[in-house]
C-alpha cells in the first residue's frame, strides 16, 4: 500500500471481503442465468411470458449486496453495531476531507457498478426496461445519507434512528415519485445528485467533530433524564428468585430489539395502507404483511437474541438449562411487545371504506365456529409464529461461534440461490412438476427420518451431558406431540382435502414444528459455556 487512501480501502475490503465475494459471485451467476434464460424459455411452453418476472426475481437478492456495500462503506462493522467513523483513522496524518470523500466515492462507484450489472446483464436481457442512470444517483444519495447518519457523533445514539426514519422516508418518496410519474432521466438524476453535496457537508462536519472529540448532545434530553433519575425509585426490592433476575436481565438486554425493528418499519406500512387504493381486497395484503412482519423479522433477529452475554452470565451459578429457559421466556415477551406497534396501526384498516363490511360478510359466509377460530388464530398464531421464529434461531447465537453464523449465512444464501434456479426449472417444465409430485411422499419421508434422527441425537446428548433430566426430555416430546396433534386437527378442519392431500399436510405440520433447534438450545449454550 503506497497511499493512505489505499490503506482505508484495504481495511474496508478486509472486513467485508467474504460477503462481497459471495455477492459478486451471485451477481455473476445471475448475469449468466439471465443471458441464457431467453433461449432456454423459448423452448418451454409459455416460458417467455414468465421472462420479465424471472429477471426481477433474479435481481431481488442483489438488494442484500446493496445493503452489504452500504454497511461496508458506512464503516458500521461486520455486525452492523458500530457507529461513527473508525477512531483509529483519526490519528493518521490524513486530512478529514480525504477520510470522508474516498469511502463516499468508492461506495457510490461500487453501488453504481452493481446497478449497471443488474440493469444491463440481468433486467434488460429479461425484458425489463429499467432506467440506467438515475438509480445510480439515487443509490449514491442513499449511501451518503447512511454515511452521514452513521458518522454523525451523537451523545444520544438513538437519535440516529430518529434522524434516519424521516430521511429514509423522504428519499423513498422521491424515488417513488420519480418511478411512478416517470420523471425524465436528466431531471431525476439531477435531483438525486443535488443531495450529494448536502450529505458530503454533513459527513465532513460529522467526522471533523468526531475527530476533535465533539459530539452533538441534546441537553434537554439530559435534563429530562436527570429529572427522571431524581424521581426514580432505587432498585431496592430483591428479585424473588435467580430465574426472575435472569429473566429481567434478558428482557432488559435483548427483548426490545424486535419491537424496535417493528416500530421503525410500521410507519412505512401505515403509509402504504393510507396510499393503497380503497378496496377491501387491497386492504388484506398490507394487513397480512403487517401481521406477519414480526414473523419474518424474528428469524433475522433471533440469533442476536441468542447472544449469551458471556463471560458475565457464564460465571453466575445458574444451570445452562435455566439460562436457556429465561431466553425462551424473553423471546415470548419480545414477540408480544413486537405486536404493540402493530396494534397501533390496525385501526387504520377499519377506517378504510368497505373493509369492515367485507370482513363481516366473509365471517357470515364462513359460519360462527370457523370465524371464531380464524379470529383466534389471527390473534394468537402470529405471536406464536414470531416466538417460534425467535426461539428456533436462538441456538446459533447461543453457540457464541461467529464462524458458525457466517457459515450458516453462506449456506442459506447458497441454498436460496439454488432454490431460485430450482424453482425456475420446476416452473418451466411441467414434466418435472409431475415427477416431483410423485416423489413428494418419499422426499417428505426422508426429511421426517432425518428430523427424527436429529431429535434422538439431541435428546440423548442432553441427557448424557446432564443438561436436562429424562423426565424433562419426556415432557418436551409430549409438548411437541401435543402441538403437532392440535395443529394437525386444525389444518384438517380448516383446509379442504381437495387443496392438498391430508398425508402431505400432516407431514408438513410435523416438519414445520421445530424440535431439535429448540430442544438443542441447551446443548448450544453448554458448548459455548464450557469450551
Amino acid at each position, binding site marked *: 500500500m503506497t497511499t493512505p487512501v489505499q490503506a482505508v480501502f484495504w481495511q474496508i475490503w478486509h472486513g467485508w471481503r467474504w460477503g462481497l465475494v459471495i455477492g459478486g459471485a451471485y451477481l455473476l451467476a445471475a448475469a449468466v442465468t439471465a443471458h441464457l434464460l431467453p433461449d432456454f424459455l423459448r423452448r418451454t411452453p409459455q416460458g417467455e411470458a414468465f421472462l420479465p418476472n424471472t429477471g426481477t426475481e433474479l435481481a431481488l437478492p442483489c438488494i442484500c449486496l446493496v445493503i452489504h456495500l452500504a454497511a461496508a462503506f458506512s464503516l458500521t462493522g461486520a455486525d452492523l453495531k458500530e457507529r461513527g467513523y473508525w477512531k483509529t483513522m483519526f490519528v493518521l496524518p490524513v486530512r478529514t476531507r480525504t477520510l470522508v470523500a474516498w469511502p463516499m466515492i468508492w461506495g457510490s462507484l461500487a453501488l453504481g457498478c452493481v446497478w449497471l450489472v443488474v440493469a444491463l446483464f440481468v433486467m434488460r436481457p429479461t425484458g425489463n426496461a429499467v432506467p440506467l442512470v438515475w438509480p445510480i444517483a439515487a443509490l449514491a444519495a442513499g449511501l451518503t445519507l447512511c454515511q452521514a447518519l452513521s458518522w454523525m457523533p451523537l451523545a444520544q445514539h438513538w437519535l440516529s434512528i430518529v434522524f434516519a426514519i424521516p430521511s429514509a422516508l423522504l428519499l423513498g418518496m422521491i424515488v417513488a415519485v420519480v418511478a411512478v410519474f416517470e420523471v425524465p432521466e436528466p431531471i431525476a438524476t439531477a435531483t438525486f445528485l443535488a443531495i450529494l453535496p448536502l450529505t458530503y457537508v454533513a459527513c465532513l462536519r460529522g467526522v471533523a467533530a468526531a475527530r476533535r472529540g465533539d459530539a452533538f448532545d441534546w441537553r434537554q434530553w439530559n435534563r429530562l433524564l436527570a429529572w427522571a433519575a431524581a424521581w426514580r425509585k432505587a432498585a431496592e426490592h430483591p428479585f424473588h428468585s435467580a430465574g426472575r433476575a435472569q429473566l429481567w436481565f434478558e428482557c432488559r*438486554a435483548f427483548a426490545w430489539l424486535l419491537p424496535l425493528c417493528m416500530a421503525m418499519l410500521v410507519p412505512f406500512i401505515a403509509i402504504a395502507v393510507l396510499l393503497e387504493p380503497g378496496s377491501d381486497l387491497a386492504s388484506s395484503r398490507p394487513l397480512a404483511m403487517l401481521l406477519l412482519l414480526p414473523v419474518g423479522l424474528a428469524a433475522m433477529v433471533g440469533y442476536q437474541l441468542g447472544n449469551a452475554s458471556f*463471560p458475565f452470565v457464564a460465571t453466575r451459578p445458574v444451570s445452562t438449562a435455566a439460562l436457556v429457559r429465561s431466553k425462551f421466556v424473553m423471546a415470548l415477551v419480545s414477540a408480544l411487545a413486537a405486536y404493540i406497534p402493530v396494534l397501533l396501526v390496525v385501526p387504520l384498516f377499519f377506517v378504510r371504506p368497505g373493509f369492515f363490511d367485507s370482513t363481516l360478510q366473509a365471517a357470515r359466509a364462513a359460519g360462527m365456529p370457523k370465524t371464531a377460530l380464524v379470529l383466534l388464530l389471527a390473534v394468537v398464531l402470529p405471536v406464536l409464529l414470531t416466538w417460534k421464529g425467535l426461539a428456533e434461531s436462538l441456538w446459533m447465537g447461543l453457540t457464541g461461534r461467529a464462524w458458525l453464523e457466517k457459515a450458516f449465512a453462506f449456506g442459506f444464501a447458497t441454498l436460496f440461490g439454488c432454490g431460485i434456479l430450482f424453482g425456475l426449472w420446476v416452473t418451466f417444465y411441467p414434466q418435472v412438476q409431475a415427477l416431483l409430485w410423485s416423489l413428494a411422499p418419499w422426499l417428505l419421508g426422508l426429511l421426517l427420518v432425518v428430523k427424527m434422527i436429529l431429535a434422538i441425537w439431541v435428546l440423548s446428548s442432553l441427557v448424557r451431558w446432564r443438561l436436562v433430566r429424562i423426565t424433562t426430555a419426556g415432557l418436551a416430546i409430549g409438548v411437541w406431540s401435543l402441538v403437532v396433534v392440535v395443529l394437525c386437527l386444525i389444518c384438517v378442519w380448516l383446509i379442504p382435502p381437495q387443496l392438498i392431500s391430508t398425508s402431505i399436510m400432516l407431514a408438513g405440520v410435523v416438519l414445520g414444528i421445530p424440535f431439535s433447534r429448540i430442544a438443542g438450545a441447551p446443548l448450544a449454550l453448554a458448548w459455548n459455556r464450557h469450551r
Partner: protein
Amino acid sequence: MLANSFPSPDHVIELRGVTRRFGAKRALDNVSLAVPRGIVFGLVGANGAGKTTLIRHFLGLLKAQAGTVRVLGLDPVQDPVGVLSRVGYLSEEGDLPGWMRVDELMRYMRAFYPTWDEAYAQDLRRQFALDPAAKVKTLSKGQKARAGLLVALAYRPELLLLDEPSSGLDPIVRRDILGAIVRTIADEGRTVLFSSHLLDEVERISDHVAMLKGGRMLFAGELDEIKQSHHRLTLRFENELRQPPALGGALSWEGRGREWTAVASGRLEALTLAASAAGAEVVEQNALSLDEIFLAQVGSPSAPAEEVLP
C-alpha cells in the same frame, strides 16, 4: 504438593495433568496444581503464559482436553452451579454489562447468592464511592474494577479468583483490591487466587506462588521456599572465560573475564559444590526477590531449569 487422595478436602483447587490446546498452540501443557485452603495464592507468568486459561478452567469456562480439574471438590464443567455459587470472580476485562446501573447490578447479583450480605455490599459501595444510579458504561476503569470487586466479594465466597485484577489501574484502586484480598483472608477458611504482573504485590501478600511459562508450570509452592531455592552467586574463576561456564541450575549469567554472576535455582550447598567443581570460588551470595526470580525464569530461553539437588 498434590495429595494422594483426589480431590483432597484440604485443597480448594486441584488440577492433574491438565492440557489445553487452541489450534496448534498448546496453552496449557500437563499442568498439575494444588491450592491449599485459607491462603493467598499468586499466579505469575509472562503474557500468553496461560494464566487466564488456567483460571478459566477453574470456572468451567474451558474444558480440559486432558487431565482433571476439581474446584472445592467439584468438577466445574459437570457442576457449574455447585462451584460458581461458592466462587467469586473478577476478570481483567471487566465484563460487567454496560447498560446496568450499579444498584441494578447489585440487585441482580443478589438473587443468585443466598449468602449475599447486603449490609456488607452497601458498605463496600460507599467505601468505593460508587454512585448507585451510575451506569456501568459511564464508570472509569478503576470504578468498574471496584464494582466488579464489590459483586465478587459481597456474598463472601469461599474462593476468590482474581484475573489480573490491578492491571492498568491507579495505585488507589490497587490498594482497594489488595485491601479486599486481605479482608477476605481475614475471614477464616477463605482462599484467594490471583494472577498478576505486579510482582511486588504478589510478593507482599501471597503465601504461595506458581509460575507459568509457555503453558508449563515452572514451579509452585510456598513463597519463602521458592525464594530460598533461588540465589544470586558471584563466582571468581582462576582463568578468564569468554562464555558463561556450565553450571547445573543456572538460569542466567552476567559478567566477563574471571568474575561471573549467576542466578541459579537449587540448594545453596549443592550450587556451591557445583561451582567448586567448575573451578570457581563463590565470592558473594544474595537472596533474590520474586521479581528477579521471574526475570531469570521467564527471561531464560531454555525449558525450566532442573534444580541442583545434593
